[in-house]
């Protein structure tokens, strides 16, 4: 692998994501777990940036890192108790977890390495998708345009908000 800037960044991001993914699920402290998740999400955003999907990366940071993680942190603090903070990992569960994770990984790796991907010739990693295209595609009503899923997602979010409020409010 050539040592280009791209590659170096990718390598760093890859290691970053790998390490923090694993740390997320192995740490005992839930708060740390959430923090590591945040790092992983940042790493993911970085991947998007590397791929040239800057908008997507921005959304990722805003929604995930800015929104969801905050939710997690709040809820962790809300459900704060000794038992929940130090959620040790049950010994008996590690083995099945490992087995399925490793077996899954094995199969996926097998597929990845045996499958012959045929990258499109016109693929240019550095080429960004401009905002205008994204905006038109998102709210356009034609072919390959996404107004309908957009609206549906809006309704879904509304429903979730109402549902969340209903569920979580005190009776």
């Amino acid at each position, binding site marked *: 692998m050539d040592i280009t800037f791209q*590659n170096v960044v*990718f390598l760093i*991001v*890859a290691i970053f*994501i*790998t390490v923090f*993914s694993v740390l*997320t*699920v192995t740490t005992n402290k*839930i708060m740390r*777990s*959430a923090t590591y998740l945040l790092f*992983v*999400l940042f790493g*993911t955003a970085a*991947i998007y940036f590397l*791929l040239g*999907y800057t908008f*997507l990366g921005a*959304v990722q940071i805003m*929604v*995930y890192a800015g929104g969801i993680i905050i*939710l*997690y942190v709040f*809820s*962790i603090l*809300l*459900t704060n108790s000794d*038992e929940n903070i130090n*959620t*040790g990992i*049950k010994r008996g*569960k590690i083995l*099945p977890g*490992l087995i*399925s*994770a490793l077996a*899954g*990984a094995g199969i*996926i*790796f097998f597929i*990845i390495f045996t499958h012959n*991907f045929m*990258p*499109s010739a*016109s693929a240019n990693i550095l*080429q960004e998708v401009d905002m205008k295209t*994204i905006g038109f*595609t*998102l709210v356009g009503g034609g072919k*390959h345009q*996404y107004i309908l*899923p*957009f609206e549906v997602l809006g309704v*879904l*979010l509304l429903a*979730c908000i109402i*549902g969340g409020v209903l569920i*979580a409010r*005190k009776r």
Partner: protein
Amino acid sequence: MEIQVEHYLIISTIMLCAGIYGFLVRKNTLAMLISVELILNAADINFAVFNKFLFPNQLEGHFFTLFAIGIVAAETAVAIAIIINIYRNIQTLNVDKMDKLKH
């Protein structure tokens, strides 16, 4: 050598498997939910990667990821609401103890 599809996929696979592992072994419900986020992220990355490398002239994967992020946000909101509610009722987030429906 260029960075290929496979390399991204390796990252996402590791993330996915970490998520799976976390989902299976964590006791805390919130921690399980965090693992689910990992899994979803892994999927998101794959969408973006496939879009970029295999079909660079289209935006399906891009938008799918976009919507997925939105839906994940919604899901998380509802799930956390439920978890908090459960916590209020049984004072624990231990998933092993959430088996009242069984009886």
